């Protein structure tokens, strides 16, 4: 009996060892047989990646010489923008790669000299161009030479010396450029700057003093932070909007995620869903504040043209929508100050604010700062100042009055406030649902007293919170789940009574 057990153990262990050895050898064999797909050797497929897409607005073609065709013009434009792009990269890194593709042998010397000088002096230039208004002046008969005048090139530059930011400037310049067709590339041969001035922003909304907002930040219960994904359901939205309206609220604040919407190439289906959301809001008589650039956190100068293309697509397709109330450029950008630099983030916000205002002159633009101190930063650039408040209620009145005093001429919106009713192992001393109700009752009192335009956070308790929102830590996640007026079972919490007033 014992021998039999011993024997079977021996046989089984033997089989296991054999299996492990064979498995090992076979995986090694298959590993050695893997390699690049043979088709990839040929680089047969070249995908065009959008790296640099400033607004280019060609003047009507009345050039001298040979008549221009659209295809050639497109090639010239692409190569011309690439020339700007490689130049920006070269000056940012003080290296010369890529320059020979887009500048002729004589022209590239000028760039090399600048790079050499800047390297020596420890100067780094981060720059981008935001607008080009080229006019085709001349196209040679053999199709090998063009002259263009690029009017009103809006250039944003940021200069560092020894890694310290010393200058930020936005300029408008006019260049005359000669390009030659060499080796299939349109290369810059001559470039002469003819005119330059400091870029000035246009001002507007001088009369916008007071607005009234009574709203709520909205995500569907099942798909928080993924409102326009596969779980998009117009029926749920319609039901929720009806509930919001019935609760006495007039507006919602929603979020458009930069990556999710396809970055520079905004996906049509997402845009349609966003439009549909606004249509539904319109049907239920709600106004919508659309928050752009959610989950975006780069702000790099060379990303700007891509950001602008993204914003331009969304803003221009929604700007006529009757349900649209305002544009929030970015949710809580001040949280990126530490990792990206305050000046860098503010420069981006200022640029984007002015850009959105230009595309949509009729809707106010704001920035959803996470606290009142930051709200003052770009007060002269936004149409409406907005801030979020999650601190002790006793200070709200002072904070609001302080902002009112600092910014007497613009409306101030409290665009997020709320309290989590989470109390559990991760936060045993948290607030109960009754505490939450008391909080909302009190804050509605303050809001009513000062007529503060406000939007609460948020309609629903959520079951799942993506890690991008508050990170992976369970006490933060769990806390974030229970800010709602309606719990995860769909029942109204005690605070629901105070959703729109005392």
């Amino acid at each position, binding site marked *: 009996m014992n021998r039999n057990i011993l024997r079977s153990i021996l046989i089984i262990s033997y089989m296991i060892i054999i299996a492990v050895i064979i498995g090992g050898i076979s995986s090694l064999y298959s590993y050695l047989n893997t390699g690049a797909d043979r088709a990839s050797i040929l680089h047969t497929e070249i995908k065009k990646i959008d790296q640099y897409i400033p607004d280019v607005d060609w003047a009507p073609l009345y050039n001298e010489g040979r008549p221009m065709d659209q295809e050639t013009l497109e090639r010239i434009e692409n190569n011309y923008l690439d020339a700007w792009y490689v130049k920006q990269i070269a*000056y940012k890194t003080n290296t010369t790669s890529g320059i020979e593709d887009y500048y002729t042998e004589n022209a590239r010397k*000028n760039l090399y000299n600048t790079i050499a000088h800047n390297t020596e002096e420890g100067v780094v230039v981060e720059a981008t161009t935001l607008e080009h208004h080229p006019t085709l002046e001349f196209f040679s008969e053999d199709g*090998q030479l063009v002259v263009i005048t690029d009017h009103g090139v809006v250039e944003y530059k940021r200069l560092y010396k020894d890694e310290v930011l010393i200058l930020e400037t936005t300029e408008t310049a006019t260049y005359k450029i000669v390009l030659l067709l060499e080796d299939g590339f349109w290369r810059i041969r001559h470039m002469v700057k003819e005119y330059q001035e400091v870029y000035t922003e246009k001002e507007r909304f001088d009369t916008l003093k007071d607005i009234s907002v009574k709203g709520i930040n909205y995500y569907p219960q099942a798909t928080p932070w993924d409102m326009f994904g596969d779980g998009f359901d117009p029926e749920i939205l319609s039901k929720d909007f009806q509930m919001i309206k019935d609760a006495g609220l007039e507006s919602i604040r929603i979020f458009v995620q930069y990556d999710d919407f396809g970055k520079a190439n905004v996906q049509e289906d997402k845009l349609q869903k966003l439009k549909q959301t606004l249509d539904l809001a319109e049907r239920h008589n709600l106004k919508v504040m659309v928050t752009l650039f959610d989950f975006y956190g780069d702000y790099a100068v060379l990303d700007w043209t891509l950001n602008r293309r993204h914003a331009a697509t969304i803003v221009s397709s929604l700007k006529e929508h009757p349900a649209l109330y305002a544009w929030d450029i970015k949710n809580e950008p001040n949280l990126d100050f530490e990792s990206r630099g305050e000046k860098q983030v503010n420069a981006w916000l200022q640029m984007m604010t002015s850009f959105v205002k230009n595309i949509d002159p009729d809707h106010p633009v704001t920035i959803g700062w996470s606290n009142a101190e930051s709200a003052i930063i770009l007060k002269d650039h936004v149409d409406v100042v907005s801030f979020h408040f999650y601190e002790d209620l006793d200070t709200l009145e002072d904070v609001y009055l302080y902002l009112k005093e600092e910014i007497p001429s613009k409306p101030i919106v409290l665009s997020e406030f709320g309290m989590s009713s989470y109390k559990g192992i991760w936060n045993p001393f948290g607030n109960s649902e009754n505490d939450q109700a008391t909080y909302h009752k009190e804050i509605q009192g303050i809001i009513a007293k000062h007529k503060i335009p406000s939007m609460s956070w948020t309609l629903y308790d959520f079951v799942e919170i993506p890690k991008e929102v508050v990170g992976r830590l369970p006490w933060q996640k769990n806390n974030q789940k229970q800010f709602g007026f309606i719990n995860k079972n769909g029942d109204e919490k005690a605070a629901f009574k105070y959703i729109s007033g005392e």
Partner: protein
Amino acid sequence: MKYKQHIFLFIAILIATISTGQEKDQGNSIGLLTSQTEFEVGSTVLLQFSSAEAVTPLLYCSNSYGSTVITPVLEETTLHYEIPDFIANKSGLVHWKLIHNNPTSGSFVMSPQKNVTTMETYIGPPTIEAGDIDYTMLVVIPTDSLDNPMPEGTPVMVDHRFLDTQTEEEIETKKIIGYKNISSRRKSGRLFIAAECLETHSTEYTVDVLPAIPTDFTISADRPHEYADGNQITSFYTSILRDAHDNIVSDGTFVTFFIRNKAGNVLKTSGTTVQGIATAKMIHPDQEEQWTVQAYVDGMAESNTISIAYQQVVKNVEIAFAKANREIQVGPLKSFMNQMIPDGFQVVLEVYKDNVLLETYTKTSRKGYVSFGLEEAIFKNDTYTLTIKTAGLEKNLPNIKLW
């Protein structure tokens, strides 16, 4: 008394504020001393500022190609900023700004040198068509020794010579470049082009004026005799192909000759022109024929139609049998002077059994004769029908017994 004291105090404070204000003002202001706002490229550009403080703010500077920062040299109360060569050597607007808490900014213009060192010349297309429609374009970018384009309105002389005529014209640069369209002439030939700007001359450029497309032409045929012996060759010639302006078309112009025979079949032969004449050849038919010939330069020109007749040479076919009828000899095949037909004349033998074609043999003549052998292994002893075809003639031999 108290009143006076008040006034005194007031005045004292006033003086104090004014003087401190002035001091502060002086301390903050850095004034530009350089009044020149236009410099020639290559010269030393020095921006000087007066400065009361011992501060040395950096100067941001941006030109046509890039931006940089310049560190000053402070001499007593003057700040000297020497604009580096790579900026001072390029024409265009240079914008500067003092990086200081009281920023001053301005700009100056770098203008190109007064003389031209290089003439960048582009000419194209390199070949054009004779006639009054086509033209080539000369584009000139005169630049100074530092590779800066000349200012607008710089005169450029364009010379061009064609055959015996030489022309000189003046153009002006506009938007960096100067250009001139040079039309082709009615004659083909070579255009010589050169440009000159402020006493700097370009090298010589040539543009070929090629003949235009051919106009309609005529053709002729030439042959050693008029007999259909399947041996001699008929040559076809075009007249000299010329364009609308009487220029002989370029060598190598492809001409196709279409030959249509009595049966309506088309034979095709072709040739390319040399000195305007294209030649093509075709072997004589082996039976009486009437050819209609026309030539084309595809899509451009065509010739007249000519017709050529060929006379029958082989009048009758004699046949002899041997070796149990298994050897069939055709001949003698005689030509127009009763001479034996030249070797290579085609004869076809068809073997039928009960109206079913069993085999076809094609052979060519040698010394006027053709002989066919019918193998025992293929054709069993039996009676067959044989048909001989040659020179358009057909001879039927029914019930030939093989044994």
